[in-house]
Each structure stands twice: as structure tokens, then as C-alpha cells.
């Protein structure tokens, strides 16, 4: 359609949208706002719908048999739907989102989003002992992906918007906007310095605002104010860290083991397997109804010290088994909520015992339940920063932060030691997918220039004749050489530059005459260089960009102070690929 045929406002609007479409950064930010709002509304609908369905499935005063029948039938029906129509909507949603982000250019189908929304809602409402937050993340990421692809954005832009969807979903599901940002960066992307921080923050903030618009300002858990009763409590919190760490490891191992066993069963049984989880949790729920569902009302009760010690211990053990079986059998639902539940129960158990032994020196079990939530989260999900901020945001209780950090770190390290592979990575491995992890990237970045650098074998003076310089470097193994005078380093000169000058009959001229960089010019240093604390991956990048196989290593305090050189072979040697001095460092 020609523009002159349109009404002027339409043409202007189209022009604005076209300009927006062309400007990637601006478009990403605008779409982050839109995605934040939509994802929040969808996640709120998901939570409310699940609640309404649960109220219908478990009416007040209903028969105890419902607690067996409803989860069994619920998981059977959703299991069939997942198998038949929505195979990518099984499980938590976090590993699936990571697959999409790292492997499929952020591509998640609308069908998967739809399936996740309704199957999860139905299965969680029926009492399956899984959480709603992981699925929310996949729904959020999926919506971001669907919108971006339908707008005709490039795969890079689609990929950039997926984390915004994740953050918006988590902010709405947990009512924790900061933890949502941290989790997205720490777990989904595995990089706290990711370039999409702006859109993630924006989407999370918008999501939180929309959530408050619809549901009002209520924290997920209401807890009485706590304070540290006595410094001896730090020791009890450390014990809680140990218990939380061990409990987390047990949970993760049981879940992975159960899942591995069910994955080995014949293919035809896949649609039936979720019913095993439903029946298991139903049988448990018949005797102990607290095991059913997400169980946040029991978390709140235990936070307020309203559950007796024996029941708390029983709930912790049963929930570990129920969640492991429900997840392992392929039901749709996450492990965030169960992690918090298990943590709260473990915390209350430790706190209950401590309070019974030292009533004057310890707070009530509720305080320990609060810390236990973060502890289990840190131990199971392995995102210690997220867990601290999440608990703070959920409860809005600042006084518990220090004990939480102590306990979290202990649980985190125990989990790291006894279960080397984080749960989401292990789940991905079971699917045969190897995702990049924060640790693998950190390992790569852990190799530094100072581990590969060597003293410069030859340093050329800028006043040296080119012919003489060529004579000095003719046996050298490198393709470039540092040039330094009394003022310090001038830069690097390539052997072929010297050879070219010689061929051009400039053998009697000084190196300074053909060098691009002169300290007396007063310009800032702009020759390629490295510092000792740079990573070797950066060294490789700079070698690639400059075309040099040798780079000078200079002081950060004085860029003209030459500390040594790093050659390509040195870098490869540090990575264990090549032997030092294996061949000349000459660029092709």
C-alpha cells in the first residue's frame, strides 16, 4: 500500500514504528516494557487460575479420598497431554529455557507456552508437589520469544529478549524483582555482567508494578519481626547451613536418581509415568495433607512458629520424596517452591531443637525456618546471591540477612563439594544436552596473562637503524618486537615492517621514523597491549584484532612500562594446546 493513500497519522505511526524497528537498542528497551507487562499479567493469571482450580478440586470439608484421586487423575491427564501435544512443556522450565537460549537462539514455540500454562496449572492445582516459578520462567521466556519472532526481529534480538521474559516472570511469580534480575543473570545466563542487564531490569520492574496493580502490595510470606537473640545463634545458623547443605544434596541426588530410573523405562510408558508421581503424592497426602501442592500456606505457618517439631520433620522428609518422585516421573512443575518448603521445614526443625535446648539464647523456630528457606535454595539451585536477596524480598525482613548469608554459604559449599554438578546442568545432561555454565566460563577466564607472559628477549631502541634491528631479530621466534626508549615503550614493530623498509632502501633510517606511535606526540597510548591481570581469552581477542601474535604486557600505572610479552604459543601452552617454543610466532 502506498503511503500517500493512508491517513497521515497512520503513515506517521508506521514511520515511527519502522524507525523503532531499525534501532535495535531502543526497540529492545521498548519491548522489555511490553514483555514485562504481558508476562506479569500471564503469570498472575497462571497463579490465580491454579488457586481457583485447587479450590474447586479440594473444597472445604471434602473427603480424604480426594487427596489420592485428584493428584493421580490430574497427573494422568496432564501426563497424556504433555506426551501427546506438549513434549517440551515437561519438567521445571528452567533447563528448557536455557536450551532455548543457548542452543535454539531463544526460540520457544507458542504451543509450548500454552501447554506449560495449562498443564502446569492443572497439575499443580491437583496437588502435585512441585512449584510454579520454574514454569512461569519458561512461560515468560516463551512469550518474549514468540513476540520477538512475530515482530520479525533477528535471532540476536530474540535471544536478547528471552532473559527479559524470564526476569518478568520470576518477579511476578515470587514478588521479588531484584532476585528475579539476579537469578536471570546468575542462573539462566550464567553471567552477572551480561549485556542485557538494562532490558532485564526494566522488564522485572514493569512486571512487579503490574503485579502490584492487580494483586496489591503483599509479600509472599508474612513473618513476624525477628532479631538475633544472642551471638551464640550464629553457631546454630552454621549448623543449619550444614543440615541445609546435606538435605539439599540428598534432595538433588534423589531427584536425579529417580529421574534417571524413569528415563530408562520403555518409551510407551512416558505418558503414564506422571501418574506414578501423582499416586505417590496422593498416598502421602492422604495421611499428611501438607505434602500436597506448593505448600506455601504451610511455609507461612512454620515461619510463624505454628507447626510442631515432629510434623515439621515429617513434612521435610515427605516433601523431599514427593517432589523427587513427581519431578522424576515427568510432571510439569518446578523445584523452586519445593526448595523453599523443604528449607523452611529443615530450618524449623533445627530451630525447634535449638530453642528447646537453649531457650534463652535462641529465637523461635520461625526465624530458622526463614533462614532455612534461603539455605535450601542456595544448596539446591546453587545461586547463593539470588537466594539471599530473594528471602529478603519475600519477607522484607532485613535483620535476618547476616545469619542467612552464613547459612547459605555453608550450604552452598557443602552442596558444591558433595554434588559437583548443579541440578539444572545435571538435568540437562540427562537430556543429553551440555549447556555452557558459569563455572566453565569462569574457568576459562581464570587463566591470566601473568601465567603466560615472559620477559621480552629483545627490546629495540627507536634510535636503532632498521638494518641493525633486522640483524638483531633475524633469529627470533616472534613476528613483532617491542620498541622502547628512555621514555618507555613506544609500541610494537613487526618483523615484516622492518623487512619492507629494508627492501625500500630505508635500512639506514631509524625505527622511530617508521613507527606509528611516538610518546612525544602527547597522544594517549593506543598500541595494542595487555596487563598482567587480563584473561588469556582477552589476549587472544586482542591478538586477533591487531593481527599480532605477540603483545606487550605493560603496567596499569604506567602504560609505557614494559613488563614482558605474551606470544600466541604461550597462550596455547597455558591452555595445554601447544608447547612453549614449539615454533616461530609468525603471522601468516
Amino acid at each position, binding site marked *: 500500500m502506498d503511503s500517500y493513500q493512508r491517513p497521515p497519522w497512520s503513515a506517521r*505511526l*508506521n514511520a515511527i*514504528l*519502522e524507525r523503532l*524497528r531499525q534501532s535495535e537498542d531502543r526497540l529492545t528497551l521498548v519491548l522489555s516494557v*511490553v514483555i514485562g*507487562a*504481558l508476562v506479569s*499479567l*500471564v503469570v*498472575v*493469571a497462571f497463579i*490465580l*487460575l491454579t*488457586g*481457583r482450580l485447587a*479450590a474447586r478440586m479440594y473444597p*472445604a470439608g471434602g473427603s480424604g479420598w480426594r487427596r489420592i484421586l485428584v493428584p493421580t487423575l490430574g497427573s494422568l491427564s496432564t501426563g497424556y497431554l504433555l506426551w501427546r501435544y506438549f513434549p517440551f512443556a515437561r519438567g521445571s522450565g528452567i533447563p528448557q529455557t536455557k536450551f532455548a537460549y543457548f542452543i535454539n537462539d531463544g526460540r520457544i514455540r507458542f504451543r509450548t507456552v500454552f501447554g506449560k500454562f495449562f498443564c502446569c496449572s492443572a497439575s499443580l492445582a491437583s496437588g502435585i508437589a512441585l512449584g510454579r516459578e520454574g514454569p512461569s520462567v519458561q512461560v515468560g521466556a516463551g512469550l518474549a520469544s514468540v*513476540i520477538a519472532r*512475530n*515482530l*520479525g*526481529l*533477528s*535471532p540476536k*534480538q530474540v535471544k536478547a529478549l528471552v532473559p527479559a521474559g524470564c526476569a518478568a516472570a520470576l518477579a511476578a511469580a515470587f514478588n521479588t524483582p531484584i532476585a528475579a534480575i539476579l537469578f536471570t543473570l546468575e542462573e539462566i545466563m550464567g553471567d552477572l555482567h551480561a549485556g542485557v542487564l538494562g532490558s532485564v531490569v526494566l522488564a522485572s520492574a514493569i512486571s512487579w508494578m503490574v503485579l502490584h496493580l*492487580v*494483586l496489591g502490595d*503483599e509479600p509472599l510470606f*508474612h513473618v*513476624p519481626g525477628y532479631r538475633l537473640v544472642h551471638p551464640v545463634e550464629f553457631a546454630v545458623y552454621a549448623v543449619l547451613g550444614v543440615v541445609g547443605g546435606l538435605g539439599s544434596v540428598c534432595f538433588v541426588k534423589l531427584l536425579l536418581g529417580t529421574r534417571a530410573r524413569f528415563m530408562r523405562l520403555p518409551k510407551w510408558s512416558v505418558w503414564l509415568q506422571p501418574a506414578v508421581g501423582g499416586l505417590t503424592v496422593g498416598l502421602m497426602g492422604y495421611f499428611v495433607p501438607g505434602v500436597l501442592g506448593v505448600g506455601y*500456606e504451610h511455609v*507461612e*505457618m512454620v515461619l510463624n512458629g*505454628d507447626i510442631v517439631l515432629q510434623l515439621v520433620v515429617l513434612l521435610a522428609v515427605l516433601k523431599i520424596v514427593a517432589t523427587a518422585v513427581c519431578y522424576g516421573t515427568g510432571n510439569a512443575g518446578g523445584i523452586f517452591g519445593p526448595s523453599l518448603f523443604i528449607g523452611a521445614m529443615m530450618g524449623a526443625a533445627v530451630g525447634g531443637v535449638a530453642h528447646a535446648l537453649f531457650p534463652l539464647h535462641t529465637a523461635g523456630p520461625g526465624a530458622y525456618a526463614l533462614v532455612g528457606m534461603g539455605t535450601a535454595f542456595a544448596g539446591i539451585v546453587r545461586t547463593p546471591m539470588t537466594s539471599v536477596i530473594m528471602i529478603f524480598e519475600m519477607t522484607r525482613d532485613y535483620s535476618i540477612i547476616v545469619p542467612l548469608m552464613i547459612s547459605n554459604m555453608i550450604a552452598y559449599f557443602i552442596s558444591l563439594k558433595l554434588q559437583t554438578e548443579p541440578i539444572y546442568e545435571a538435568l540437562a545432561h540427562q537430556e543429553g544436552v551440555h549447556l555452557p555454565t558459569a563455572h566453565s566460563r569462569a574457568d576459562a577466564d581464570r587463566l591470566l596473562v601473568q601465567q603466560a607472559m615472559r620477559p621480552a628477549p629483545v627490546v629495540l631502541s627507536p634510535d636503532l637503524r632498521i638494518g641493525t634491528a633486522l640483524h638483531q631479530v633475524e633469529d627470533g621466534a616472534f613476528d613483532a618486537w617491542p620498541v622502547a626508549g628512555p621514555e618507555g615503550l613506544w609500541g610494537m614493530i613487526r618483523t615484516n615492517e622492518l623487512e619492507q623498509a629494508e627492501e625500500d632502501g630505508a635500512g639506514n633510517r631509524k625505527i622511530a621514523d617508521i613507527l606509528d606511535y611516538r610518546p612525544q606526540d602527547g597522544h594517549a597510548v593506543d598500541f595494542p597491549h595487555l596487563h598482567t591481570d587480563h584473561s588469556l581469552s582477552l589476549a587472544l581477542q586482542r591478538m586477533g584484532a591487531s593481527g599480532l601474535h605477540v603483545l606487550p604486557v605493560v603496567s596499569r600505572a604506567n602504560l609505557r612500562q614494559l613488563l614482558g610479552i605474551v606470544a600466541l604459543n604461550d597462550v596455547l601452552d597455558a591452555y595445554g594446546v601447544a608447547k612453549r617454543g614449539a615454533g616461530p610466532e609468525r603471522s601468516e
Partner: protein
Amino acid sequence: MAAPSPARSFLGTISLVFLAIGAMFAIDMFLANTQRVESHVAAARLFRQGRDLMQLGRNAEAIEQIKGAIAIERGNRDYLRALAQAQLSAGHTAAAESTLADLLQSDSTDGLASLIMARVLVKEGRFAEAISYFHRAVYGHWNQAAADNQLRARFELIDLLAQRNSKEELLAELLPIQDYAPSDLKTRTRLGGLFLLAGSPVRAAEVFRGILRDAPSNADAFDGLGEAEFDRGNYLLAQRDFQAALRLAPDQQAARQDLDRCEELLTLDPTLRGLAPAERLGRSLKLVELTQKQTSQCTGPNPSPELQELFDQAVRAAEAHVSAARQSEAAESNLDLAEQLWQAARKECAPPPPSDSPLALVMARIAQ
């Protein structure tokens, strides 16, 4: 890498997204409202059950029900107040205090919460703080029947002060209440009694006289007036009022006891006008006998020499034959001896003899 291919128009997709946002917002609001309504109904049901259980005295179960209601509808102050009341009734004062502290932190003018907090503190024996909360309840905000509730709170405070015998504070609370307290006979009778407890028999007498003006045959008012006159030392008037009360209500045990006490006092009192010297002497001897008996009960078989001397004097006084001319002089001497014995009794006896017994009152009158 493939170039972006806008399969649908950019504008179309954006419009669809905004349409979806609008639709989802409508769905969310519908679901949220439905949930609110259902939650409210469920919470109200639990709360009602909790209140019923409280009335049956099953406070532990009531607490569970009310907590369930609060878990559904957190911000409801009525539920929180009821929970605190149930916790108090169940004897969980620390839990009740914690519940009320949260309530009062969000609204320190909450009259009912302040009143329950005062009751909790009374139960914990923290009277000074309790009185402060009673005052907050008296001057606080009440959702309904504010004046009645404030009066109720003040009467609870008054009862506490009366129980603790804090006469000055009690009087301070009673004075303002006179103007706006209900004018029914029961309340006025109660007020009169409280003035007596506050050590203000004059005001009490005024109140009872007022009642008798409106209801001349009110036995309680006569009894109260009798007590007021008794406290003022007008024993004959008191006797008359007690008799009037008993005439109107012969079964009234309190009036009977009051009259007996009054008459006992009148038979002991040697300071009454118009007594013949012989009668006065006889009463003085009776007082010596009673005070000696009181003192010897406290000292046991081995009194101090000084006290033994007083006992000996008492024996001699009882055995002495006094001529008619020396009766007044002997009566004075006996009263002096009785006074010394009474002082010794107050010193030796633990606890000291009750100050409102007829003997004590007569001895106090003599000391004046």
C-alpha cells in the same frame, strides 16, 4: 545469518500484543476479584467458627480457626483482635501480646486492641503498663458504640485500681466518669461503692443520697450510705441507715454484717456523748481487756518485762474497785492503758490487727 523477515506487519503484531495485555488484564482482574470474594467468605466462615468456639471456652481450637481466617484475609483487624482475645483467654499471653503489638504498631489509637493489651498486661502482672493501655483504650478509637466501649474500658481500669487499692488513681478515674456515666441505679450504686473504695465517703454519700431521692426504698443505697457515714465516723447515722436497709431487705447479709460491726463499735466507743461515767468506765475496761487479749495473742507466753508490766496493770485495773467519784479519772487511766496496749499490739503482731475492725476504729478515735 538470515535477515529479519517481518512475516506479519510490525504494527499488527504490536496491536495484537496490546490487545493481549488488555485481555489478560481483564482476566486477571476478574480472577483476582473472584478470589477476593471467595477468600472473604472462607475467612468469615472460619472467623465465625472461631468466635463460636471461644464462646464455648474452647480457646485453643478457636485460635486455630481464627488463624486460618487471618491467613486468608491478613489485613482484617477484627480477626486479629479476636485472635488476641482468644490467645489471652487460652492463657497464651506472650502470643497475644505479640499479636496486639503488631496491631497497635499499625494503629496506636485502636481502642479495642489497647483494651485487650491492657488485659494481657494485667494477667502478666505488669500493672503500670496495663494502666497506660487502659488509658489508650479510654481515649482511643472505637469502630462502634465508642462512648459505651470507652466507659467499659474506664470501668475495667477502675476495677483494677480498686483491686490494687490505688485510692488516688481510682478517685482520679472516678471524678470524670460521674458526668457521663449512665444514670441507671445499678451504675450509680456501683459508683457510690467505688467512691467508698477510693476513700471519698463524702462523694459516696452524695451519690447514695441522690439514689435515695430517686428511689427511697433502695436497700443497697441505704447500705451504701451507711457505709459512707460509717467511714466518716458518723456511726449513729450509719447505724440508722443500716437498719433502714435491713428493714427494706431483711435478707441482705452485707447490711446485716455492717450493722453488727457498727453496733459492736457503738457498744465499745467510750467517746460517745451522753455516756454515764459508770458506762464510760465499763467501756474503758472492756477496751483494756480487748487490747490486752490482742497483744498477748501476739507476744506468746514470755512477753517483755515492759509488756508484762502493762499486762499486770491491766489485771489490776480489772480487779480495782473504783468509787463513783473516781470513775471518770479511772476511765481516762484505763483508756491510756488501752492505748499503750494497742500500740504494743500493733508493734508486736505480724500482721498487725486489721485497721477496720471495731476495736481498731475505736482505738483510732480515742487516739484523735
